[in-house]
């Protein structure tokens, strides 16, 4: 009698992604696909220099180009109090430069013209007279005495320090180190990377003077936050602002911040009273928008001789670029860096962090990472491997003996997070078995005798996904909850809207599966819409793997509200009291007479045609969900590699992933997320970085220098799963989107370092380019990857 949940596309169904129907036909609707009547085009002139005083800007030749409608400079923005805008981290950022340019690629002027070719030609006609200043490309330079103050626009800013911050127990940690038998150390740089969504950022601002309404089609992962920001920055009434985020070609954190191009296109539309489109080019995206990482980490681990970890010290120096526009919960200056070591039972820890301004692009975003968790977990797993080596212990056993045990939950981490569930040792065991750990260790010894270098690297971690709870997590004071609204129509079909914003995660598919699970309405009968602030309920958007933990929970909760009302309707239709009605998937029935029942579709019909006396008609509701805690998925990644000792080239022999993200809504999508994340992890470990030379030139401003991995060189991955349901999430799910990007890099790097163990080299900075590996092998010293780039001149 009861419905087969998999058949209706419910929980656990590897349902094909409904959005792919239009994507694979080229029928997606991205910002650049939208054309409005009378639309003009905007291009941005960017600074060629990293640090320079602007002596003058001559725009007369640009105005003279036929078809030019508007030329905007910082001076014009300043006259409207728009030269600077607030960032998501309580700093300010130049919209268009006025006094100085502070990074290569900074926005200096904008041209609006009849077509983008004209706008680009006119940009080239603008003459800017720069007086070069010494550029700063790393924290060491930023903290040097006599360093130029980059943010001399800020009153009271005497140096290049953005913040000093610490968390944990300093005294307790000092005591732990005093009692330690062994202390291990490691120091490394997590290089600057870039989310590089395939679609760049862009907007179409459309200000309608007759209604005073501003509509902005925009590439944003968080349309509601943008609406609030526009209301504040542009001083427009919030109800007269409509932000529409249509199909997004990826985001990975890059599309969370507010960028100068958005603001300039909005002002241009208001001034010209015509729609103004701005589409960033690829270089503009790479050179100016939210980057990831660029953190220098060092630390120590205190241990007993038997391998028990007693305490950890960590310090980070982070490079934020010219403006502190990181996207992260306001309370945490270096994001959730202190989630490091959460999977290990460590009594005490202390983290100190200092942020620096440099002459580099601003906007440390969580590149497929829950707020600096990628750096935290990379450091953790590099530290753990170094510690195991120093102790002479097997790296798997060292992890196992220090794991939080299955019956120790809930567990308070040394930095104060509360983890709630997991089976860490089980995941590790599955991973070791899959990779053939013991056999590989033997193979490695055999290979060594023949001059071949094999290595194995492990990375195990639990990470905090799904900010927030509202007690601790907010952005600019707005609490990090999320929402869903469900309308069930008379025929039992439904529309669901949430405050999240899909950008490849497959919300249109998976949200419907949650509704199907809760109500028994087939997933194909539910349409999902997100991204239009005029129709979607308020939410904080999609990043930090928060959609399923927060918005997904709201989808379950609103479905339950609908079911509660449907139960009353069912009782009315069945002519029994509500207490006598039971539920099975898709159907209410009389407990004492199970054959007597009504389907959810019949209840929906009655909600519009035959409701009980006194009941409000209709079957729709909304839910705002404030999660009690973060979710804590666990992952175990193990890579094996062979290093060519003559060239330093390394090949991945095997990569095994064991992920426990709790209950899986759509296993196929989960696997896709893990494979995508491992691919990005492999890229960061092997080839990908943005660096800078002594002049502050960005090396990595195009896709010949900044490499995205392709199917040709990316290794295969073997995936395994463990399911430990989240105890507080309504359907037991945990975040997954970012686990592999976060945990993956350390597995590859640890594997290469394991192959090089006999050299005594402790660290090679990512990416492990062949020349770096070769240098470590032949020179037997650590290899730093910190900018400035080593060149001949």
């Amino acid at each position: 009698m009861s419905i087969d949940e998999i058949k209706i596309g419910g929980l656990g169904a590897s349902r094909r992604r409904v959005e792919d129907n239009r994507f694979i036909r080229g029928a997606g609707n991205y910002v650049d696909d939208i054309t409005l009547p009378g639309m003009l085009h905007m291009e941005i002139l960017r600074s060629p220099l990293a640090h320079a005083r602007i002596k003058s800007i001559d725009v007369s030749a640009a105005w003279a180009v036929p078809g030019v409608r508007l030329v905007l400079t910082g001076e014009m923005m300043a006259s409207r109090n728009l030269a600077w805008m607030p960032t998501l981290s309580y700093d300010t950022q130049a919209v268009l430069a006025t006094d100085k340019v502070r990074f290569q690629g900074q926005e200096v002027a904008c041209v609006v013209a009849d077509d983008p070719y004209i706008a680009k030609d006119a940009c080239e006609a603008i003459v800017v007279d720069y007086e070069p200043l010494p550029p700063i490309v790393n924290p060491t330079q930023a903290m040097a005495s006599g360093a130029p103050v980059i943010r001399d626009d800020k009153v009271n800013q005497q140096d290049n320090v953005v913040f000093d911050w610490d968390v944990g127990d300093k005294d307790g940690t000092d005591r732990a180190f005093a009692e330690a038998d062994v202390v291990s150390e490691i120091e490394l740089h997590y290089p600057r990377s870039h989310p590089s969504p395939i679609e760049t950022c862009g907007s179409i601002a459309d200000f309608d003077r007759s209604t005073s309404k501003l509509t902005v089609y925009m590439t944003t992962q968080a349309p509601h936050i943008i609406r609030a920001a526009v209301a504040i920055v542009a001083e427009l009434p919030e109800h007269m602002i409509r932000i529409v985020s249509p199909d997004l070609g990826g985001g990975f954190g890059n599309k969370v911040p507010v960028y100068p191009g958005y603001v300039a296109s909005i002002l241009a539309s208001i001034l010209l009273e015509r729609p103004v489109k701005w589409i960033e080019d690829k270089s503009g995206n790479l050179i100016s928008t939210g980057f990831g990482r660029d953190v220098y980490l060092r630390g120590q681990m205190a241990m007993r001789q038997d391998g028990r970890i007693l305490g950890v010290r960590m310090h980070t120096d982070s490079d934020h670029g010219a403006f502190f526009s990181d996207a992260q919960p306001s309370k945490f200056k270096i994001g959730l860096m202190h989630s490091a070591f959460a999977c290990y039972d460590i009594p005490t820890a202390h983290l100190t962090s200092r942020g620096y301004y440099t002459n580099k692009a601003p906007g440390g975003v969580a590149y497929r990472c829950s707020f600096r968790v990628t750096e935290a977990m990379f450091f953790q797993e590099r530290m753990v491997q170094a510690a195991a080596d120093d102790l002479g212990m097997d790296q798997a056993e060292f992890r196992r003996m220090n794991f939080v045990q299955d019956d120790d939950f809930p567990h308070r981490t040394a930095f104060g997070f509360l983890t709630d569930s997991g089976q860490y040792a089980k995941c590790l065991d599955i991973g070791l078995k899959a990779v053939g750990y013991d056999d590989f260790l033997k193979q490695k010894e055999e290979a060594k005798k023949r001059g071949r270098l094999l290595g194995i690297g492990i990375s195990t971690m639990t990470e905090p996904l799904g900010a927030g709870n509202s007690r601790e997590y907010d952005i600019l004071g707005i609490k990090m909850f999320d929402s869903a609204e469900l309308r069930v129509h008379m025929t039992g079909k439904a529309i669901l809207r949430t405050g999240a914003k899909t950008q490849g995660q497959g919300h249109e598919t998976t949200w419907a599966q949650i509704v199907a699970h809760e109500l028994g309405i087939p997933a194909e009968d539910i349409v999902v819409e997100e991204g239009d602030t005029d129709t979607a309920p308020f939410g904080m958007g999609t990043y930090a793997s928060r959609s399923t933990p927060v918005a997904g929970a709201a989808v379950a909760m609103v479905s339950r509200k609908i079911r509660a009302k449907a139960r009353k309707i069912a009782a009315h239709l069945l002519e029994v009291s509500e207490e006598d009605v039971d539920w099975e998937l898709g159907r209410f029935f009389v407990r004492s007479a199970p054959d007597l029942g009504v389907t959810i579709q019949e209840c929906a019909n009655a909600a519009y045609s035959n409701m009980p006396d006194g009941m409000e008609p209709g079957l729709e509701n909304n839910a705002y969900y404030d999660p009690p805690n973060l979710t804590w998925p666990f992952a175990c990644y193990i890579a094996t590699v062979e290093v060519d000792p003559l060239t330093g080239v390394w090949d991945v022999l095997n990569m095994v992933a064991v992920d426990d993200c709790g209950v899986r809504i759509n296993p196929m999508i989960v696997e896709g997320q893990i494979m995508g994340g491992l691919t990005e992890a492999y890229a960061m470990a092997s080839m990908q970085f943005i660096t800078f030379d002594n002049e502050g030139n960005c090396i990595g401003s195009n896709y010949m220098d900044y490499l995205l991995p392709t199917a040709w060189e990316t290794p295969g991955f073997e995936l395994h799963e463990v399911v430990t349901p989240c105890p507080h999430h309504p359907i037991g799910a945990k975040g997954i989107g970012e686990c592999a990007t976060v945990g993956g890099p350390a597995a590859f790097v640890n594997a290469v370092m394991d192959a090089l163990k006999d050299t005594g080299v402790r660290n090679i900075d990512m990416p492990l380019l062949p020349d770096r590996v070769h240098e470590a092998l032949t020179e037997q010293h650590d290899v730093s990857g910190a900018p400035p780039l080593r060149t001949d001149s």
Partner: protein
Amino acid sequence: MYPSRFSYEAPTSIDEAVELLRLGAGEAKVLAGGQSLLPMMKLRFASPGTLIDINNIPDLAYHRADADGTYRIGALCRHAHLEKANGLAEIQPTIAAAAPLVADPIVRTRGTFVGSVCHADPQGDWASVMIALGGSVVAQGPDGSRSIPVSDFVSGPFQTVLGFDELAIEAVVPAPVGDRAGGYLKLERRVGDFATAGVAVSIERSGSSVARAGIGLTGVGSSTIDASDAAASLVGGNLTDDEIARAAELAASASRPRSDHRGSADYKRHIVATFVTRLLSNLQLTNQEAA
């Protein structure tokens, strides 16, 4: 990515193309595969006044061996044509080894061999291969055609001796002296990346004795490098381990790499030596073969 304004011509004969080049007076560029030119135009690194698209000229897509063993590649022969050519490894082993390593499969379906040589990117693969093979380029101008050895053809980074009114219509590899063997190795950070370093090797020998050798180096100088001393050192020898080691050392010292984000200069020189050694060691004959 919006290029500057340009005009577009699509001639249907070589003569018409040459006339358009003449009229272009140095402001015209030839469009064949466009895999380097179009990105450079979009970045506005190149802003030609006129694009002369030669894709409508018939009978230029060939690659063929003459009866005497001379091998000819027409101006519209795509990389993929060579990659997929049956039996190429037997007659042109260096070309066959390089073809699947050029850029990525997408570029290989559009980009052309001759266009790549004319682009004269120091990181281009085909110029190295042509140097190793002692090949030449046939240029057609208003007053007739001439043949230019590739070692003279490339005059600097992205520069050739081709006149503004000349169209490169064919690449020619001379017939081998004896048996031809060779190979190509390239180190790249990722498929489709420019070479960190690349080495093309070709030898021709009678029995076990090397009659002719060529070594071209990719991405380790401001233009493609002809490691002629290294190649000359092999002639008359039998590819002994000592001879190979000497050639590797000479090739490395002929390279002029710069340190950059792909690797240090020292590392690139080391890769040149390693690749020369690997390539030549693969060509060593077993005693049985030599006999």
